[in-house]
């Protein structure tokens, strides 16, 4: 196929406010130019966004922050190398300039308009439009007035249900995104995404005693999420946690068995192990599991899954940011490593087949292999059995954030913790940090309960901050280092 990019036939000008078939011709021209230049693969990612953020503090709305934008990310592969250029300029000239810049990074040059070169590009496939049924979503979301009213209900509920509250906050974010992905392998796909998140946080203070607590709730593809939010239950959960922790003592450093609660407890698996199962880590040589597919890397009680399919979950997708439909990927089955999460680059560089896991925060980031809804599967035990099996240990009811170092060490803050003594929960403790390495801790997850639940979160990594779900049932780790005072 010989292609040209002529201003008259391929100008995308005026198309920035709609991503549809009208983009076929200009995108085919761009992709053809890139292919004719000698690229192995060219991919164009177009994006429109519409964001609303609202913050309520005490009895006031203190911030309303709308934002909208457009942009494109163009990626060119040559062998295992790639060049990536992002731009806010969706004009024909802007996109061509970005393509030429990306080609130039790899030592390639686009053929001139006057002398087009042959290309291996055979045109785009039929548009797969995952967004067709989602057009009403943005209009069905709460109005600004409805959102502010709902958030103030939240901060009022906190006031009613809490004690010694020095600060009360409610936050709401609505992120609408329309994307169009086209690649020189024929990929042509469109989607609309809608993510909403709600949060309540409090700071309780009484003399020298201080405690903060917060919960976040998130969904995808559910315009009615805010309207259906159980404000009272959320406020009660937050206030109970802050009230419990306000007068708690700091935990002493120790090495003990730990029982981690379900839902957001799954953040540890996400951070400490999940990231090591992304092909970006294989590429860097920073995962200890790179050559262990088929080998036992965790306790036989552990089966772990990553998928983009759970309806309404924060990490669910109709297609990934490379136009591939998501899958249910079994990462670990009964302790045995089964698969890595892979994207286009990961497949080219590591040989691991794509799993619909190519994700990015926005057009400004090249996609990378990233998690979606990631969780440890339910086991046969009740949560009470896990706690009863511990003579002296720690129960982590609510986890905070954490991080994983470049050589695999992780650490996580425990927001709400309780001592376990003789199989019973006793006094609450604060200031605990769980410390370890995935390779050492995974074999120590000896019991999984039957109460799997998911929780929404944000994951920041190589391709920016993305919406994810973490999850697990209650699990027991036989021994872990607990940092304290």
């Amino acid at each position: 196929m010989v292609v040209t990019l002529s201003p008259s036939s391929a100008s995308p000008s005026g198309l920035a406010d709609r991503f549809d078939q009208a983009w076929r011709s200009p995108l085919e021209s761009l992709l053809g130019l890139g292919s004719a230049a000698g690229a192995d693969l060219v991919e164009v990612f177009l994006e429109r966004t519409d964001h609303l953020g609202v913050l309520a503090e005490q009895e006031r709305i203190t911030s309303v922050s709308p934002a909208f934008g457009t942009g494109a990310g163009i990626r060119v592969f040559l062998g295992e190398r790639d060049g990536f250029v992002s731009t806010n300029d969706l004009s024909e000239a802007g996109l061509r300039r970005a393509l030429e810049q990306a080609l130039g990074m790899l030592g390639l040059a686009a053929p001139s308009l006057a002398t087009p070169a042959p290309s291996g590009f055979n045109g785009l496939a039929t548009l797969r439009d995952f967004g067709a049924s989602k057009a009403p979503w943005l209009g069905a979301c709460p109005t600004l007035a409805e959102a502010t009213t709902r958030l103030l209900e939240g901060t009022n509920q906190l006031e009613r249900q809490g004690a010694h509250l020095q600060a009360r906050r409610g936050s709401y974010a609505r992120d609408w995104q329309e994307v169009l992905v086209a690649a020189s392998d024929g990929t042509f796909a469109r989607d609309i995404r809608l993510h909403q998140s709600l949060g309540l946080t409090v700071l309780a203070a009484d003399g020298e005693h201080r405690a903060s607590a917060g919960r976040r709730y998130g969904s995808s593809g559910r315009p009615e999420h805010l309207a259906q939010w159980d404000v009272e239950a959320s406020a009660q959960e937050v206030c109970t946690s802050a009230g419990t922790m306000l007068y708690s003592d700091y935990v002493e450093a120790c090495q003990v068995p730990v029982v981690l609660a379900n839902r957001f407890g799954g953040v540890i698996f996400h951070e400490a192990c999940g990231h090591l199962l992304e092909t970006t880590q294989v590429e860097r040589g920073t995962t200890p599991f790179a050559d262990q597919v088929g080998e036992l890397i965790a306790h036989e009680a552990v089966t772990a899954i990553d998928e983009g399919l759970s309806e309404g979950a924060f990490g669910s997708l109709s297609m990934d940011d490379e136009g591939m439909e998501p899958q249910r990927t079994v990462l670990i089955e009964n302790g045995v490593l089964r698969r890595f999460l892979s994207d286009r680059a990961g497949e080219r560089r590591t040989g691991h087949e794509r799993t619909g896991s190519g994700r990015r925060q926005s057009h400004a980031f090249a996609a990378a292999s990233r998690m979606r809804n990631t969780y440890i599967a339910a086991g046969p035990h009740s949560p009470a059995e896990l706690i009863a099996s511990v003579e002296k240990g720690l129960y982590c009811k609510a986890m905070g954030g954490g991080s994983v170092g470049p050589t695999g060490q992780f650490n996580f803050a425990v927001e709400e913790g309780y001592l376990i003594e003789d199989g019973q929960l006793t006094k609450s403790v604060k200031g605990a940090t769980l410390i370890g390495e995935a390779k050492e801790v995974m074999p120590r997850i000896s019991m999984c309960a039957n109460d799997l639940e998911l929780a929404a979160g944000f994951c920041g990594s190589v391709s920016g901050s993305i919406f994810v779900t973490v999850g697990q049932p209650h699990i027991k780790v036989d021994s872990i280092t607990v940092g304290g005072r």
Partner: protein
Amino acid sequence: MDKLDAPALRSRIETFAQAQAIGRWDLGAASSNDSSVQVDRGEAKQMKAAQRSSITVRVWNGDGLVGITSTSDLSDSGLQKALAGAQDASAFGNPDDCPAFSPLATAPLQVLEQPLHEPRGILELLTSLKDAERQLLDRHPALTTVPYNGLAERSSERLYLNSDGACRQQQLTTASVYLYARAEQAGRKPRSAGAVRLAYGASDLDLAGCITEAADRTIAHLDYAPIPTGHYTCVFSPEAFLDLIGAFSSLFNARAVLDGVSLSSRSSLGQSLAVPFLSIADNGLHPGNIGASNFDGEGTPTRRLSLVEGGVLENFLHSEATARAFKVAPTGHAGLGAKVSVGPDWFEIGATPGAAGAALGLDRLAASSQGGAGLVLIDSLSALHAGVKASQGSFSLPFDGWLLQGGETRSIEAATVAGDIRSLLMAIVGFEGEAKVTPDGLCPHVWVEGLSITGEA
């Protein structure tokens, strides 16, 4: 990079604002061009470039309430939509805390010495980084890869305009390099450390210094051992102490004070916060602050501000609105928003001139040879986003460092340091060595006694 055309932007905004009956507005605009490369064992791993532009407009409605909208669409329709969005949002403006134009938005600015560099181009960056990677790997046989690396250059411009005629504009070029090496030895855990350098242009980057520091730090962690859990006197590197103070900067933040989420309160001014020989200032204009801005998001000039002197809290960082609430002048630390954020620029930390009480001439190597539990040198802190509870004062942070004991220095396998920032500031023993210029500020090594270290339980 084409210069942002401030008069043309003002003209367009004025026209669109007038059409929407908006009489009072201000805006912040920014544009940038970035190029960056990463390498992996002699090959280009990823090369990236980005062109970004954005604008944030604020409008005041007839009731004096403020609304805001941001966009990356700088077309006429984009600007019109942004103004309309801000107008809609202003209906929900907070009447109790309404921003105004900074009274200093037209005050003279200090001229900064910031030479503008022509970009070297991404292929030259690639060549330099490949060479740097090779040199780093050649430093020691245990250095196997440099998994995290990057060389970047950026040209950027920012602009502040308001309907009263204020106009601030700044052009800047910067470059950065980071090299994080991984070392592996048979039967031992991999170790990693790195270094960062900033400059106004890629040709000015201290690549040799970055390579040497990354190599020395990584190699110094090869011989590691666990540290017994306990309480230790700790020596914070300048970078680590600056990170810690930065994580607790809500102590000095008037916005956080007004919101009730700071450990400080209005009455904290004039009160003792730290040992009587500690000084902390914020000085975004320090020549060591690569990429400094001479005005903040509201157009207020940046300036040096003493925060703690002789251990006593002297001032808070302010925006226009918080300054008005405290009946002081804005300090040049604001962002731009409906609720304006406040943040520090660049810290200067050290001994208060003439103050008594600080141990002088501290020398960790000499002290470690005197026996006892030893000293812990905290080289770098991690996971500050998760391990710091700024509103509670507590922290529990993993760190890289060394145990200095019996005249020997040994890398610590894995450990966390925990404590309370108020207690820490009162437990400073003294300072060691000259203050060092870092990307986050100026600071010497800081000795603190009695900190809890969790290592091997």
